[in-house]
């Protein structure tokens, strides 16, 4: 009898631990909405998300809260990082999975683990002291730029893209490779026409996941993006500074009060939604791949 009660008690305790994560997620949503929603309803969701001017501490006139340049900034630096990291990452993954001798494979694998471990603030710092002056001196502009942010984010995204793509490539059945090679195709032709297409959905999932992570990253971009809350002009000028949503929160939260603080929480809501949607797409892509595989 006694034993039965204690067994039940333990199960309830374990259930409570398991429920903690979902409770925290619920609390995060409640607090974001509680703090952020008033300003969104006050300004209007359209004006908040598509407004061009962020001027929370207005000396003259009313403060304005438009985060459109920051939404663009977040996507801009994240997509920029993918443009750099995806081809390079896939090349490294193909190298790892297909042609690396075992010593090279273990060397690269360990290096990637080392790269994952480097705290983002240190990558941002290296970007600040190496990359920003380099861009300023050799490419022009202020140095703090979309380009600098994209490069730093690409370095952060690289390990994840490499390891998931490596797994996806290695999951391609040996038969496919053998069949193609037996038909007289070269190794590279086999990689390009057989292996990469078969591994495509896994690689796509990796890329979307990397995008979500890049949009959610704070410290590394905060230190190199320049943090000017305007659209780059002209829009394709990657040497212009931007202020991604994460930087906006990190920069101003320490002194914001009243509506201003609310607007930062509202920025957090938008950021949360964007990242959650991307994560969901990536999970779906991974799941559908599991379904197809035998």
């Amino acid at each position, binding site marked *: 009898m006694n034993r039965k009660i204690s067994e039940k008690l333990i199960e309830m305790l374990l259930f409570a631990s398991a429920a903690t994560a*979902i409770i*925290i997620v619920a609390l995060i949503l409640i607090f974001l909405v509680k*703090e952020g929603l008033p300003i969104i309803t006050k300004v209007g969701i359209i004006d908040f998300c598509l407004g061009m001017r962020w001027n929370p501490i207005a000396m003259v006139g009313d403060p304005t809260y438009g985060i459109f340049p920051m939404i663009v900034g977040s996507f801009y630096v994240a997509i920029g990082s993918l443009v750099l990291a995806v081809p390079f990452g896939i090349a490294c993954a193909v190298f790892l999975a297909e042609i690396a001798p075992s010593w090279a494979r273990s060397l690269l694998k360990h290096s990637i683990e080392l790269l994952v471990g480097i705290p983002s603030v240190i990558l*941002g710092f290296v970007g600040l002291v190496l990359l920003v002056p380099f861009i300023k001196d050799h490419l022009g502009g202020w140095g703090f730029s979309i380009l600098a942010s994209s490069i730093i984010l690409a370095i952060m995204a690289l390990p994840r893209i490499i390891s998931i793509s490596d797994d996806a490539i290695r999951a391609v059945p040996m038969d496919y490779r053998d069949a193609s090679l037996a038909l007289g195709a070269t190794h590279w032709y086999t990689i390009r026409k057989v292996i990469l297409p078969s591994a495509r959905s896994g690689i796509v999932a990796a890329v979307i996941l990397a995008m979500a992570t890049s949009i959610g990253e704070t410290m590394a971009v905060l*230190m190199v993006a320049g943090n000017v809350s305007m659209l780059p002009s002209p829009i394709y000028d990657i040497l212009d500074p931007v202020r991604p949503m994460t930087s906006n929160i990190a920069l101003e939260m320490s002194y914001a009060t009243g509506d201003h603080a609310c607007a930062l929480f509202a920025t957090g809501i938008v950021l949360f939604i964007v990242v959650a949607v991307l994560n969901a797409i990536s999970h779906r892509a991974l799941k559908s791949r599991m379904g197809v595989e035998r």
Partner: protein
Amino acid sequence: MSALISPVTADKAAKVVLWASAGIALLILAVILGYIVVQGVHVISLSFLLGSPRLSGAEGGILPAIVGTFWLMVVAMLSSVPIGIGAAIYLAEYAPKSAVTAVISFGVECLAGVPSIVIGLFGYAFLSIYLGFGFSVLSGGLALMFMVLPWIVRVSEESIKTVPNAFREASLALGATKWQTVRRVVIPSAIPGITTGVILGIGKAIGETAVIMFTAGSSLLMPMSLFDPVRALPYHIYILASEGISDPMAYGSSIVLLVMVLAINLAAIAIQRHYGRHYVRN
């Protein structure tokens, strides 16, 4: 193009490019680590490691930041490890295939995807203001707990699932209860994997900055209690670098933080090797 270049040439060229990509990846890592070490190694000394900062950190040492980082990790791990392992045991051993279980797993996935700055915002609103913990070791540590909890649940669940079913059946057949089986048979078999996961979790949390910016505070004084504010090492690096206080000090602090992360990862690898278990890190 393929008509102009023979397949064999293309094959050779492609392999050169792939080798080069791998080489560049190694080069990037070497440049980052090498630059920091070369710039910062002359700052490292006993008085730097064990001294107190002066002039907002432009001179002196970083001991309070090291101690602050240590206490943040202690709070984060003491709170996340029991809950995380408990959750993993429930999910791997007890959970019925039901909608409730699906919601719980979904919650873990969701929490893992929340951007760190949003966790920081939430930690500020909930822990510092609503619960009244203020800017303190406690707020910062609990906010870090929100961040590492999903990781600990996931790695623990994976290690528990690799324990062969025969172990469980043998124990149950001897008349042990479910909890006895879990506690005496399943957990001991899964403990190397769980330990490795927990240590890697510390490695992830220790360099985190955005989560603790508005929760742990930025005091450069030595923390004396859970309710004292601290400035963790990564935040210290950020302030030194971005406010232009002192680059050399930032390099020195970066080396210390890198050594900590490296030591933690090596410890995890050592445990993994020692138990000779196949452990996949993603």
